[in-house]
């Protein structure tokens, strides 16, 4: 970019280049530096993940040694065994998986259904309700904790699957995502379906939903992963150990077993691996979901 090239004959390379100029060399060096920085930062970024996984498969004798073992050998599953024996981890895993799946399905249905009328149909009050919802998005969740907690404990619903699953269906973010997406769908298809005397429910099921697959994918993936990693809600509304999820269970384990790092890392690995797999398989949707959310303005 704008660097003067000095014409100077040099030994020709196997690729047949005759004149390697100082400019080209400089560009090569710069590119190397760029890659070096990026790779270094990638290592920094991934270090916690790497450390988590390798610690979990180290034998307890070598875990605390300095200098630390970068590649665990021999591989031992002691930590996992300890964790399983001293905690309700399998139950936590089950809770996390079941609730995340249930919420994902529910939130897609509820919000896709609700978004369609706002996106494509006009009805009295739609403006008002929409602005109300938009303003609710600004409310920090912390404001809602106390009254919700009082309400839920008065209703005797603490420690129940109800309170863990049903509120998860209400997500203003997911609603807006569906609405934005559905607005871009061509109305001609809807009109055609109406001419064919299709019911509104039929239009939704046969026309809108199939066309909204990209939005469904993004909402489903973000919902699932978000719920998988949910912490505060479960902290608030569960008391007994067998109703916890992975996040809260492991956080409590950390305080009950102060320097038991191995089992802690084993638990973290168990929680992280499904998410990593989902991420690697569906990267595209993660990136899309993020940019769509930002570009909506």
């Amino acid at each position, binding site marked *: 970019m704008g660097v003067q090239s000095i014409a100077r004959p040099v030994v020709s390379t196997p690729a047949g280049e005759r004149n390697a100029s100082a400019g080209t060399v400089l560009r090569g060096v710069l590119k190397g530096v*760029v890659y070096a920085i*990026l790779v270094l*930062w*990638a290592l920094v*970024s*991934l270090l*916690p*993940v790497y*450390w*988590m996984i390798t610690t979990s498969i180290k034998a307890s004798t070598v875990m*605390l040694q*300095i*200098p*630390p073992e970068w590649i665990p050998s021999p591989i031992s599953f002691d930590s996992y065994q300890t964790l399983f024996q001293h905690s309700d981890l399998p139950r936590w895993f089950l809770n996390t998986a079941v609730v995340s799946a249930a919420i994902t399905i529910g939130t897609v249905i*509820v919000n896709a*259904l*609700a978004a*369609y*009328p706002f996106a494509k149909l006009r*009805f009295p009050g*739609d403006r008002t*309700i929409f602005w109300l919802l938009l303003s*609710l998005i*600004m409310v*920090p969740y*912390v*404001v809602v*904790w*106390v*009254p*919700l*907690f*009082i*309400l839920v404990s008065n209703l005797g619903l603490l420690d129940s699957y109800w309170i863990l699953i049903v509120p998860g*269906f*209400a997500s203003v973010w997911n*609603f807006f995502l569906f609405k934005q997406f559905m607005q871009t769908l061509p109305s001609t298809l809807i009109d055609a379906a109406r001419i064919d005397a299709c*019911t*509104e429910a039929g239009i*939704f099921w046969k026309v809108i939903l199939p066309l909204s697959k990209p939005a469904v994918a993004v909402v489903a993936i973000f919902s699932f992963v978000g719920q*998988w*990693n949910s*912490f*505060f809600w479960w902290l608030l509304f569960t008391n007994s150990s067998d109703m916890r999820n992975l*996040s809260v269970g*492991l*956080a409590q384990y950390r305080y009950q077993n102060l320097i038991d790092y191995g089992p*802690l*890392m084993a*638990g*973290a690995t168990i*929680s*992280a691996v499904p*998410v*990593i797999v989902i*991420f690697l398989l569906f*990267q595209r949707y*993660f*990136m899309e979901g993020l*940019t769509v959310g930002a570009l909506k303005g």
Partner: protein
Amino acid sequence: MAERTVTAPVQPMLGKDSPSFGEKLEEFRERYLWSYLFIAPMIILIAIFLFYPLIDAFIISFQKIGIARDEVTQWVGVANFVNTVTDSVWQRALLNTFIFTVVTVAADLVLSLFLSWLIFPLSSSAQSFFKACYYLPVHIGGIMVALVWYWMFDPTEGVLNYLIGLVGVPHQNWIADPNFALQSLMLIPILSGHGGGVILYLAAMGGIPKTLYEAADIDAASAWSKLKNVTWPLLKPTTLYVVITGTIGSFQVFDLIYVLTRGGPDFATVTLVYLVYQVAFEQYSFGLASAQAFILAAIIVVLSLAQFRFLATDVEY
């Protein structure tokens, strides 16, 4: 083409053609029933779990809630609000939260921009590779990331002290050190949390028309000048988004504090949201906690508006 024929004589407008109330109702039902049915589940859920608690929280913040059997709920007016802002622990929390937010958001901004600027000219597969590397740790879950750092922070056997020892820096106590605990916590989002910004900036950079850069080249602009006069202004919308969402998020940091330090040592890491949690669920002062939550919400709204005013300028092409 149909022939124009004279139809029945023109009727007066009044009376005859107005539909009856029953007919109007029927038409209303036909046109809008499904819409209301479709939005009903969401509206009901939002009303119960977001709208109602919001109103209730507002009311509670003016009360002192009685918990035990013999305690009554009393109305205390603005006492909760006054007690909050005059409390030194809350003021410390405000300071900590503010520092945490400013540092992590600024670092996120700078790092994301810098990395995106480096990645953008590369091949598409290189871009995908690095994007994945930076964005993956974000989704492991804040708790798991915090737990790993908890292990890495261990003063005697943790890998962090080992690594800095390699370059001659003396061992730190990290989160156990009252003078360094907050800074240690800030390292976590800085080093493990900015993948999203890179993705957004890369996407935005892709949207900048090449013709602008070509015009700059004709004027023999340097790389720095291009960055400053073309790239940066056109990325302002993305910057605005990153800064505002980052601020809102960082201001409400909780998980890290709960898992790693519980506000200590010596209040070095109390944050506003963590304080609300303590007041509500360890001291059971629900009214006070509600007031604190509203003050926090107000601060966030003010901050967001200020940032919006400051950063949202019209970009001219």
